[in-house]
């Protein structure tokens, strides 16, 4: 059973005590919505949950195992979308998705095309990423998310630069992910319109 637990997370950034005893439990099929003012530490928390930032104290477990013990196994199930899209500006959308998928699982050309059609950027497939708008780039990043799978999604402001249709799409993608038993952690300013049973909330001070 997929389950992410965080217990008493403590983290300092220089003089600033960013995470003060954060705790959360997110089970399979649930989404943890992380909210808080700018600078409250949402991104830091998400990066800590991925294992990118070492903790001062506390423990993060995935399926009951500390993520620091077998980071490779944890990372192979993790799919992270940060502020930056993780895409190269000088590659086309298709090439970006092909190389991103090559790090995770074998995909066919039609899988890539299907992922781009799903996120509404099929017509931009052959264009260099630097020629796309910020919203289109975000949609290509969402295509990467669906293409590379993983049972734990960690998304940092996934809705930034997206239009209204993009927000609906994002909710659909998260909903599908949760229905298949996946776990999602989403930092957002905008309330996620998910069923109450699927939604957990965490507000950082």
């Amino acid at each position, binding site marked *: 059973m997929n389950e992410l637990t965080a217990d008493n997370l403590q983290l300092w950034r220089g003089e600033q005590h960013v995470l003060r005893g954060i705790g959360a439990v997110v089970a399979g099929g649930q989404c943890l919505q992380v909210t808080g003012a700018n600078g409250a530490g949402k991104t830091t928390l998400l990066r800590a949950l991925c294992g990118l930032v070492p903790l001062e104290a506390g423990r993060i477990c995935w399926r009951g195992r500390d993520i620091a013990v077998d980071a490779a*196994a944890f990372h192979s199930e993790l799919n992270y979308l940060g502020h930056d899209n993780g895409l*190269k*500006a*000088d590659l086309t959308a298709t090439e970006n998705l092909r190389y991103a998928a090559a790090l995770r699982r074998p995909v066919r050309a039609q899988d890539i095309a299907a992922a781009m059609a799903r996120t509404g950027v099929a017509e931009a497939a052959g264009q260099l990423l630097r020629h796309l708008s910020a919203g289109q780039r975000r949609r290509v990043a969402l295509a990467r998310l669906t293409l590379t799978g993983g049972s734990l999604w960690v998304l940092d402001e996934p809705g930034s630069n997206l239009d209204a249709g993009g927000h609906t799409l994002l909710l659909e993608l998260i909903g599908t992910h949760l229905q298949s038993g996946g776990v999602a952690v989403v930092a957002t300013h905008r309330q996620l319109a998910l069923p109450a049973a699927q939604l957990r909330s965490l507000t950082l001070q």
Partner: protein
Amino acid sequence: MSEQRVGFAAAAAALIARDLRLALRRSGDTLQPLGFFLVVTALFPLALDPQLSLLRDIAPAALWVGALLSSLLALDLLFREDAQDGTLEQLALCGLPFQGLLLAKTAVHWLLTGLPLVLIAPLAATALGAPYEAMPGILAAVLLGTLALSLIGAVGAGLTMSLKRNGSLLALLVLPLAAPVLIFGARATALAIAGEPLAAPLYLLAAFTVLSATLAPWALAAAVRIGLE
């Protein structure tokens, strides 16, 4: 959930292919280090008396200082862009050995700056008056030396990738560490030009390259992880 995973070799090959494709797309930037090396080595004969004996004396120094500096030119971009656009995070979080993936990126740096230098070295050495018999020795030294330069340089590039202006700091970090390459490489080249046995400096250069290849991946992964925090 059991998912089919890609192996490390396939992922590293895809990463190398990606970086080579990107380099091809900006061939202007990619060719700069090679052009720099050629210009630097060609300037020495112009600045000196065109006596063959004098040229042969300074040839090792000209070749190796040129190689060191041109290797440095392309280092700045090795991890910086990947760190800025978030692809480096994706490498760190893909569940494959991070050291290995960074080593694959370092291999691309060698393919783009080291290998062209190996191929052009006979030409540059001839321009500096080196006899034909010296070429095998010079080639061996440049091959070993450029490998070590890429490995050491990558650690420096990893340490400085998140700094705003890192050009001179990178040089300050990397050049002292690369001094053994300069010393043994230049010595081997000088002996090759003089027609004397060059096994001793060549072996020391090889040993230094092996040492770099052993230690650099771990230092590199640690440096890049700190940069990603």
